[in-house]
């Protein structure tokens, strides 16, 4: 039988040997220092690596990677803000009134008329509320389905705060206290031909009112004038559209003629009027199942938006302001 006291120093010896071995290895392989940037790298090489990085991420390399649950990226919004401000102040020279009508805290459903093909009206209204409302909250805007299906457009719209227009999304946003901008005219509104430009069309099937009734948030009518002339739609060209799977190809004075430059909006004078909220507190939460009430409220809302548009038109001196 072995004495444990004899065993003890042997273990110690082994440990000491291991430690010295480790020291030996360390001394032979010096630790790797920080990677030094390559000296004398040419301008072209740097350009090449930069380009490769940018192509790989397709211009989205500046995003933060932190998005909220609906995909809005604060960094992208911050980067877009100067451009949107420039459009707001210099290009469209937006004349805004009524930002104080929105509630100080808590959610609200902003309902605006829609026009002008591209979602400039949504972006400008968001910009207006964020800059001129006391709480400086950025509203989220609901985007029509057909814009969501377009490549490139959808990722950017989501990062700027656009959300697909559907009831589930609106309810979720409102229940978390957001301002939500809705355009219940939908594609009918975006695709108004020029002679009908100031007429507010039918408001969907009353979904907006139903969402407001169920969540108990105030409905705020908004009239926007100017977007319709930014992309004046002369007529809808349906023949070539079928082969692309689009509802129609819009023909504006600039669009198919100037190619991609036609996507640039004309510098029209904009007027945004935010009306007094329509209170819905006195109605029962299950009032949404009363179809007649919903359709009456929807029509009331539509006529309020129409009168705001009329007021805005009367205040604007000319299209170019």
């Amino acid at each position, binding site marked *: 039988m072995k004495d444990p006291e004899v065993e003890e120093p042997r273990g110690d010896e082994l440990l000491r040997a291991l430690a010295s071995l480790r020291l030996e290895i360390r001394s032979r392989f010096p630790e790797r220092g920080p990677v030094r940037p390559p000296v004398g790298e040419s301008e072209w090489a740097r350009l090449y690596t930069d380009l490769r990085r940018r192509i790989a991420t*397709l211009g989205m390399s500046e995003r933060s990677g932190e*998005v909220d*649950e609906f*995909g809005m990226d604060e960094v992208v919004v911050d980067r877009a803000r100067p451009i949107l401000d420039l459009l707001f102040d210099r290009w469209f020279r937006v004349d805004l009134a009524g930002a104080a009508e929105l509630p100080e805290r808590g959610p609200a459903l902003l309902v605006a008329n829609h026009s002008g093909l591209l979602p400039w009206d949504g972006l400008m209204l968001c910009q207006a509320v964020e800059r001129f409302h006391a709480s400086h909250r950025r509203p989220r805007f609901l985007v029509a389905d057909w814009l969501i299906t377009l*490549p490139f457009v959808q990722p950017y719209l*989501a990062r700027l705060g656009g959300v*697909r227009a559907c009831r*589930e999304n609106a309810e979720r946003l409102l229940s978390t206290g957001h301002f939500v901008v809705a355009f219940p005219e939908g594609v009918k509104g975006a695709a108004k031909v020029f002679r009908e430009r100031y007429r507010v069309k039918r408001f969907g099937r009353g979904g907006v009112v139903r969402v407001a009734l169920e969540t108990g948030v105030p409905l705020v009518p908004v009239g926007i004038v100017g977007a319709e002339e930014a992309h004046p739609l002369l007529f809808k060209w349906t023949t070539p559209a079928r082969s692309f799977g689009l509802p129609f190809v819009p023909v504006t004075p600039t669009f198919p003629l100037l190619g991609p430059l036609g996507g640039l909006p004309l510098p029209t004078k904009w007027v945004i009027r935010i009306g007094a909220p329509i209170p819905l507190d006195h109605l029962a939460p299950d009032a949404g199942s009363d179809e007649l009430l919903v359709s009456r409220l929807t029509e009331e809302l539509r006529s309020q938006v129409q009168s705001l548009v009329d007021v805005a038109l009367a205040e604007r001196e000319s299209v170019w302001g």
Partner: protein
Amino acid sequence: MSAPGVIAVTGLGSFVGRRLVERLLARSPHLRIVGLDQRRPFRLDGRVSFHRIDLTEPTVDGRIAEILERERVEAVVHAAFRNEPTSDVEMDHEIETIGSLHVMHACAAAKVKRLVVSSSTMLYGPRPDNPNFLSEAHPLRGHPEAHCVANRAEMEQLLAEWRVRHPDTEVTVLRHCWTMGPGVWNRVARYFSLPVVPMLLGYDPLIQFVHEDDCLHAYERATREPHPGVYNVVGRGVAPLSTLLRLAGKRILPLPAPILFRMAYYPSQAQTGDPPAAFYDYLRWLWVADGARGFDAFGEPVYTTKEAWISFVSARRMRRYR
């Protein structure tokens, strides 16, 4: 019904089946597992009594019922699903849909008290007109070209009908999204491990993952506790696909959809039996599920989507993932 003492697991070799059995055995010393599968697993714990069962045989439901009765099984976990679709489309249908039907019939005949069925949020389908968060009540629209998704959607429909006829059995359906973690190796993980990851040009959807531990935790609790109903099992938070790939330091190759689909057509058909759209549409449109019900029932997940992804990437990197 209290915690069951004897649990039968179909699909002992599948990802969910194997992991769940390991987990259940590790947690409870007095539990007995009845394992059913086509093939005997390589390693088998002493507390697992294994039975070779081929779900594609015509009268297999009677045999399963007999085993369930003989072993006095109290709860059945049905996880006999393909980990990934195979090119044998007919066989996949036989196993996933008809096989599930056999399992349901056996459970009814043996009067099993609890049935836990593995499903997937992929069944909601990637659609541009999906809401940002799909609830459990959303219709299972699937993908027109993904045959395994169609099989399971059919299975869930059969299960819903079966549930109405057999109200005495507690049925729990767990729809989990793509799992991520150190132990995950399937089609999704393979795609993300490609040296250059192809993406659809112009699309960058929000992606949702659940960590394998959180996923199996939900399965474990659904097996031990009464949670009848359908639950989405997902991680908290979402992240854009490009962000995830950049986080992993992957090279991205954005390709227009027609080109990518043509390039990947034959490999995809050979491997999965479906055209590439059946997979890449899940990287094109939104199909994020709302996990609120699952969080309430099974507890808050430990890992968020991004943490699950990082855990997968760092584990792969240890094995020279580039």
